[in-house]
């Protein structure tokens, strides 16, 4: 088979692949303790083998394993960690063990466990480098810090989703929250779409205060983005004050903010001064938009102010002291008690600067003030260079990040625009008629406005709906740019012609959406991205956000597969339909009711007869009522589309799907069909064949015909995603039916026990969420792991592929009857 593995086949040369063990057949009977021991034993075996590959001597390996043994209860976790490191380099193992030994000396057992878990988390989230550097910090002092971790510390990871929601609510804008990765140098900043915050906050003792600080940070960044701090617009400053540095260049550069700041003699000084000036101005914005937060932040700010002590009294340099004084004045909200009152002449009195900054109306005014202040500062503190200070929650503005984000946004917009324009060109008569009688548009006449730029293409004007776009196109056009045949012209030259908008055209939003893909918010027919945890049985914990799953449509197939199948199963289909129609609940007529739609004639006659005969009428239940008992079932079929299903299995799966569709159409239950495959944790593909809301129509039929074997079988993330889809249906009974042909397996380490255990865990999660998972496995032999993986009563084994299409409707009937 050569070097590249055919999909679905087990890659052989992968070092860490688990060998089949003889003990596997009997595993179900073994107790948990034995199982653990066995797992531990094979961890050690693997580790030994890995070390062997790296030319470790037998005795050395023996010694290392002995050392691991010495960790007692922790040894399994240690072994798992060492194994993972040994996959990269065996030399790491020795060093790591040394560190762990040292850590153990000063950490109690459970703390050591937490310490190791943190190392695993880092390994998963930030990679080997970070993890190794964390482990190597095994000094007394470092561990003390780890041990004495503030109980009130708040982790960004645990609150970021809530914080995003909070920002969405309070601002109406979509911000993403990201970890800034820096704590001291620059705790927080924004690039205008994402807000970067420190990974954890333990500034205060209480979680409430730390959470509030997070909120304050986020709100401050929102204010920056919303109030134009990151894109100051200003008229050129008053000419009498001398030439301000390189204004024109700043206006045109692709990175205007950086140009603006690097034009100052002391860039960092200008950057921080501007940030503080803006923060003073933004206080009024926050006070207006979030009065409660602002009020509560006041005391927080005072606490921060008190805790702000510089070791050797005043900062060494006057310039630093000046910034510090101004910042503290800001923290104190302008109150006099700020400890630093740098005694300078009236020009650079912080109180005066603070008062003026409060009066600023826009970022441009702050920028202008900045010119003056910087010039004065040069005079008052000559030859001093500012050392950037930690400005707590206001952080430091990152011109590079702002520029990068702006560039990406511009690029995305441009691509979308180009995509649409290209389509317009490709399709003749694509321009809708303005004010025409045609049904297509009723758009009012929009004349071109002078002073605005438009794209002239095929004699029609197209509006550029965004300044960024205009900028991007100006760079690209003319000269055979990305939009051939288009010219940018000014509105004045267009002579009041009608202007089209992209939204006038029927197609939109199909284009590239990469830049907000990460948020998983992309709608429409593009790929949706999801992150799922994965269960690692060796360390007994989840790998957080380990798998990336892409949800997408199956490519429509050609050929009348569905019709052919129906023809082939002819009579059986009819019988199937009848059988399922019987299950369907018709409205039932309930007789002798107290209240109802109509009179129950039998009851009525009886009652009247009774009365005439002088008997007491048997009751007042004289009505009939129609009652519709609804089957409230939602079923999701999950098909294994791995490479190993090639041939009969795939054919049988497809036929089963067709028959199930027929049956369920007759029954009226809600159902959806999805397929899964993929390769490695970075690309778990989840294919939509029919969603719950779709009807069984041509599009679905085409997609069924298009089901074909793809790559590997990573079942965990697919099951977890199916869980979340099913959970959203709100049906009373939710059924997850998984069709597969064997062991879960992926190109990477997802194989053997690891895959089985993760799949098992995913199914357990499903049951915990109130779903009923049921697995149908097509295999010739009854594998011993099946009951363990699926749970004894929750699976069925079909040994002959050809039987599947006939069996599956029966199975479904049994499950739901």
């Amino acid at each position, binding site marked *: 088979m050569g070097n590249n593995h055919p999909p679905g086949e087990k890659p052989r040369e992968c070092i860490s692949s688990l060998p089949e063990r003889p003990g596997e057949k009997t595993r179900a009977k073994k107790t948990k303790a034995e199982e653990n021991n066995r797992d531990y034993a094979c961890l050690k075996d693997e580790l030994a083998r890995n070390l062997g590959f790296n030319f470790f001597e037998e005795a050395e390996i023996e010694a290392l394993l002995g050392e691991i043994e010495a960790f007692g209860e922790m040894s399994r976790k240690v072994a798992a960690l060492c194994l993972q490191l040994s996959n990269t380099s065996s030399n790491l193992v020795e060093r790591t063990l040394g560190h762990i030994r040292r850590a153990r000396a000063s950490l109690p057992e459970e703390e050591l466990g937490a310490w190791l878990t943190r190392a695993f988390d880092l390994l998963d989230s930030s990679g080997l480098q970070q993890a190794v550097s964390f482990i190597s910090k095994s000094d007394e002092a470092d561990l003390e810090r780890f041990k004495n971790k503030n109980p009130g510390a708040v982790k960004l990871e645990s609150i970021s989703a809530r914080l995003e*929601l909070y920002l969405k609510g309070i601002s109406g804008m979509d911000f993403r929250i990201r970890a800034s990765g820096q704590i001291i140098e620059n705790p927080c900043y924004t690039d205008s779409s994402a807000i970067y915050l420190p990974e954890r906050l333990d500034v205060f003792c209480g979680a409430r205060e730390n959470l509030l600080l997070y909120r304050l940070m986020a709100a401050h960044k929102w204010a920056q983005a919303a109030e134009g701090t990151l894109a100051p617009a200003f008229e050129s400053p008053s000419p009498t004050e001398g030439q301000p540095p390189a204004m024109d260049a700043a206006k045109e550069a692709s990175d205007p903010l950086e140009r603006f700041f690097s034009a100052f003699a002391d860039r960092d000084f200008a950057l921080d001064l501007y940030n503080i000036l803006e923060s003073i101005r933004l206080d009024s914005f926050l006070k207006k938009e979030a009065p409660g937060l602002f009020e509560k932040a006041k005391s927080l700010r005072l606490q921060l102010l008190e805790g702000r002590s510089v070791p050797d009294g005043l900062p060494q340099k006057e310039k630093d002291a000046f910034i510090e004084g101004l910042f503290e004045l800001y923290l104190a909200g302008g109150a006099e008690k700020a400890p630093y009152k740098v005694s300078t002449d009236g020009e650079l009195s912080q109180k005066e600067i603070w008062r003026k900054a409060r009066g600023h109306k826009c970022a441009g005014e702050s920028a202008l003030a900045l010119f003056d202040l910087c010039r004065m500062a040069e005079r008052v503190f000559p030859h001093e260079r500012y050392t950037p200070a930690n400005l707590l929650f206001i952080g430091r503005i990152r011109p590079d990040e702002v520029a990068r984000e702006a560039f990406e946004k511009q690029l995305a917009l441009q691509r979308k625009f180009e995509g649409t324009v290209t389509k317009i060109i490709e399709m003749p008569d694509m321009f809708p008629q303005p004010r025409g009688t045609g049904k297509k548009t009723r758009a009012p006449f929009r004349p071109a406005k002078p002073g605005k730029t438009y794209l002239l293409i095929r004699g029609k004007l197209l509006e550029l709906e965004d300044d960024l776009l205009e900028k991007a196109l100006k760079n690209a056009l003319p000269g055979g740019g990305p939009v051939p045949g288009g010219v940018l012209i000014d509105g004045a030259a267009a002579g009041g012609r009608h202007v089209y908008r992209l939204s006038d055209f029927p197609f939109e939003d199909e284009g590239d959406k990469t830049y907000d893909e990460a948020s998983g918010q992309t709608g429409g027919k593009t790929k949706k991205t999801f992150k799922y945890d994965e269960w690692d049985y060796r360390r007994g914990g989840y790998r957080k956000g380990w798998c990336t799953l892409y949800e997408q449509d199956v490519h429509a197939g050609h050929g009348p597969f569905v019709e052919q199948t129906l023809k082939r199963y002819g009579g059986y289909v009819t019988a199937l339909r009848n059988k399922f129609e019987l299950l369907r609940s018709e409205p039932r007529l309930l007789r002798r009711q107290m209240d109802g739609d109509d009179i129950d004639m039998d009851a009525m006659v009886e009652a009247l007869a009774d009365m005439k005969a002088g008997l007491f009428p048997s009751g007042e239940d004289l009505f009939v009522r129609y009652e519709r008992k609804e089957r409230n079932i939602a079923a999701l079929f999950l098909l294994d589309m791995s490479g190993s299903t090639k041939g009969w299995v795939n054919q049988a799966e497809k036929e089963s799907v067709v028959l199930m569709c027929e049956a369920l159409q007759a029954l009226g239950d809600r159902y959806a069909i999805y397929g899964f495959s993929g390769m490695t944790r970075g690309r778990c593909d989840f294919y939509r064949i029919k969603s719950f809301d779709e009807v069984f129509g041509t599009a679905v039929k085409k997609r069924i015909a298009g089901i074909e074997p793809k790559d590997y079988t990573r079942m965990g993330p697919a099951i977890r995603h199916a869980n979340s889809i099913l959970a959203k249906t709100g049906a009373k009974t939710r059924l997850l039916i998984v069709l597969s042909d064997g062991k879960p397996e992926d190109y990477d380490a997802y194989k053997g026990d690891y895959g089985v255990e993760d799949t098992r865990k995913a199914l357990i999660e499903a049951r915990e969420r109130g779903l009923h998972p049921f697995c149908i496995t097509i295999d010739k032999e009854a594998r011993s792991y099946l009951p363990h993986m699926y749970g004894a009563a929750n699976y069925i084994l079909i040994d002959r592929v050809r039987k599947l299409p006939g069996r599956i409707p029966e199975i479904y009937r049994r499950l739901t009857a």
Partner: protein
Amino acid sequence: MAMSKHLKVQEFIAIKEKPYYMPMGKEIELFEAAYHNMIPVLLKGPTGCGKTRFMLHMAWKLGRPMVTVSCHDDLTASDLVGRYLVKGGETLWVDGPLSRAVKAGGICYLDEIVEARKDTTVVIHPLADDRRILPVEKRGETLAAPPEFMLTISYNPGYQSVLKELKQSTRQRFMALDFKYPPDELEIEIIRHESGADAELAKKLVMFAGKTRNLKDRGLTEGASTRLLVHAARLINSGIEPAKAFEAAISFSLTDDTEMLETLSEILDSIL
């Protein structure tokens, strides 16, 4: 006729006092024009934005009695049209609210029409086109609606469920008025009028409502309605602490999700 005295009139409201309504656009003029031209009207808009209040106001303005039917998924055609009851050994026909409205020439308002069963909605079709008749199958008769009769239905397009979609054949019989939450200044005005709250409080309420409406489809199915704001304002006026009143009247009504409630209380925290 014997049965006339059995006519139940409790759903009928003859409105004597002017119900407070603050117009947001030309909806009053449009409704009047529809009434005089015998065009049935569909009101759409989120819950608690003033649809029912608007109907009461219009009924008062036009001087017609109004019958309101809140539709539910067990509402049958006979619930609307009428049915036979048994009384003292005899069967007795009782009109449903729709029949009564037709006979009395009143306004029939079917609230949340999508909640009703599909087969029930079809009953109103002949009434809602130019025939303006109501066939009463069980009695083998047909009621013709007088010119004063008017049919109005309401629905909330916010719930995006395939099952709760209004059929084209139904919706294309109606003129539609689209209701939205009022703009901030008007909403403040409405809250102040309805609850007697001061301007400061009303402003905060509207601000909070705006933030919850931002969260629609991000965990909330619907933002806070004007009705909820009025409730909260009234609670506060009766001496309830604002934070508690906001929570009880707004947050807890909007969602049960603990995480969402936490977010809402964080937002509230940032406003109060």
